[in-house]
């Protein structure tokens, strides 16, 4: 019990410091995702699998404390300064002010930053000398099996998360599961921006496949789907299809990727 208390104390101190002091946030660990083939979820007959080159991916999603450092260093990304074209009015709306996550959010310092736009996520990645992962990279890394969870299959784990409304307080990073690559929370904590988030379903109607302007309704749309019963992937691709680059949403954050030279 004592140990746990000390643990909590040390950590809350650490978060508090991270949250308020510039330059104190440790560099994020990146993990190597080995090259391989990714079979796109939506594909027309004859579509080849995508070859994924080995790349680096952040171990966890970018946290509020980390994002604060970015905002401090880049005034144009402060809440009061940001262009509406780049982020809608919900941008970082839960923060206390431009440069304060706020005492009321102290449980969130090490939780994923959310209510940030695609433009903001992309700018953060560039500032770090990184980039956003592509959909193919994200999906490839995200389908690795769970290694520290009792949950049966990844699909049932993911569906389970999708079926629950957002929690009152967003948990910290590393609070869900770790996968085979060592990545934390690829599912089960937040949705994550990807570089080409809207390139798969351009239409709002999920029964249509607009890649080739076919109007396919209900069941026929699944003719072009890798696995018809993969409801978790359907939900993820529909969600991405609903997004615009300046949207800032309660359960949407990001992590960064990097090429291996």
């Amino acid at each position, binding site marked *: 019990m004592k140990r746990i208390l000390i643990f909590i104390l040390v950590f809350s101190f650490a978060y508090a410091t991270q949250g308020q002091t510039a330059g104190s946030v440790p560099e994020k660990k990146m993990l190597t995702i080995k090259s391989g083939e990714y079979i796109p979820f939506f594909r027309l007959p004859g579509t080849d699998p995508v070859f994924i080159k080995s790349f680096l991916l952040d171990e966890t999603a970018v946290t509020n404390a980390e994002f604060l450092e970015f905002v401090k260093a880049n005034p144009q990304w402060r809440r009061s300064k940001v262009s509406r074209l780049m982020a809608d009015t919900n941008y970082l709306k839960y923060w206390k002010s431009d440069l304060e996550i706020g005492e009321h959010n102290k449980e969130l310092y090490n939780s994923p930053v959310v209510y940030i736009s695609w433009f903001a996520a992309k700018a953060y990645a560039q500032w770090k000398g990184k980039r956003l992962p592509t959909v193919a990279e994200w999906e490839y890394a995200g389908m690795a099996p769970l290694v520290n969870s009792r949950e049966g299959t990844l699909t049932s784990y993911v569906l389970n998360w999708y079926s629950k*409304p957002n929690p009152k307080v967003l948990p910290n990073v590393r609070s869900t599961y770790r996968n085979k690559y060592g990545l934390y929370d690829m599912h089960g904590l937040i949705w994550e921006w990807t570089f080409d988030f809207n390139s798969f379903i351009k239409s709002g109607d*999920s029964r249509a496949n607009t890649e080739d302007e076919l109007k396919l*309704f*209900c069941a026929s749309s699944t003719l072009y789907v890798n696995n018809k*019963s993969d409801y978790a992937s359907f939900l993820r691709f529909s969600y991405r299809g*609903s997004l615009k680059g300046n949207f800032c*949403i309660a359960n949407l954050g990001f992590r960064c990727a990097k090429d291996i030279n």
Partner: protein
Amino acid sequence: MKTPLSKRLSSVLSLGAIALLIGIQPGCKQGNDPSAPFDISKIDTVITGTVDAELTEAPNVPQPLTYTSPKRVKVKLEVIEKVMNISDSTQYTFWTFGGNVPGNFIRVRQGDLVDFTLVNHEDSKVSHNIDLHAVTGPGGGAEASNTSPGQSTNFTFRALHPGLFVYHCATAPVPLHIANGMYGLILVEPQSGMPKVDKEYYVMQGDFYTKGKYGAAGLQDFDEDKALAEIPDYVLFNGKVRSLVGSGALTAKTGETVRLYVGNGGPNMVSSFHIIGEIFDKVYTEAGSSINTGVQTTLIPAGGATIVDMKMEVPGTYLLVDHSIFRAFNKGAIGQLKVTGDENPSVFKKGK
């Protein structure tokens, strides 16, 4: 002489063929037929004002419309994902149009320009859209309405055909969204209005698939295997076991006429809709323009609807059932219509 005759014959024949074609086109009758679609040549008729649609929770139906020329009707529907009771002991995470299953009832008039805004609540986990079967246009509105959490989308459509139409979410995976309760009804009144009745109610059937069996306690997750096999744990009227029973029962008095707007959201089951102890005086078959009379049981397809009218002659409790009867007996597809008033022994009398 031969040629002109054959010419005349052929022109008579082709005229006849055209007449036949027009004749067999469903819903294309001319004149004062209340079932006729909106005359497209009058599409630019000036809209005479804007109204906010009255939206109601089942089993209530909005008041009959009193205006007599097309209006811009504003409808705003919010998608809310929430845990609710599916039975007294069981909870389920429903995805709803307006906070309830079925979604809010929408009532417009033929010729109205419907200005539709879909809001997805900030706390939603996933994106949603809406396909209204009353819409003439791509995806029934779905293509224009895929909405992220915390965002809203808007589209307008002209209500061309009168009838009772299902609306539902059509975001992939469509079956999951429907299985979670994302459906409701929109009534497009004919320009002459619906014939007057004393009571109108809104009932919608749906089937549900849970990890635990019927009535298993606690929060139950969606079961994809059961849904694919089409073996529901629950077949329900208005989204909950006993929603139309006891204090939730529909009511009427003897001598009153009752109209039920009945939809079937599915996702899988086709309903054999029946009321025990009543015969439907009128059934608007599949909620279209043909009226059948003296019907005992009427089919309601998944993604379809019906309108039934009946006059209540004898007091008592009448049971609404899906007469695919295991569903009524074991899976929850049962409701009550309680009729009070004087006995009517010339119609029904219990012996000793």
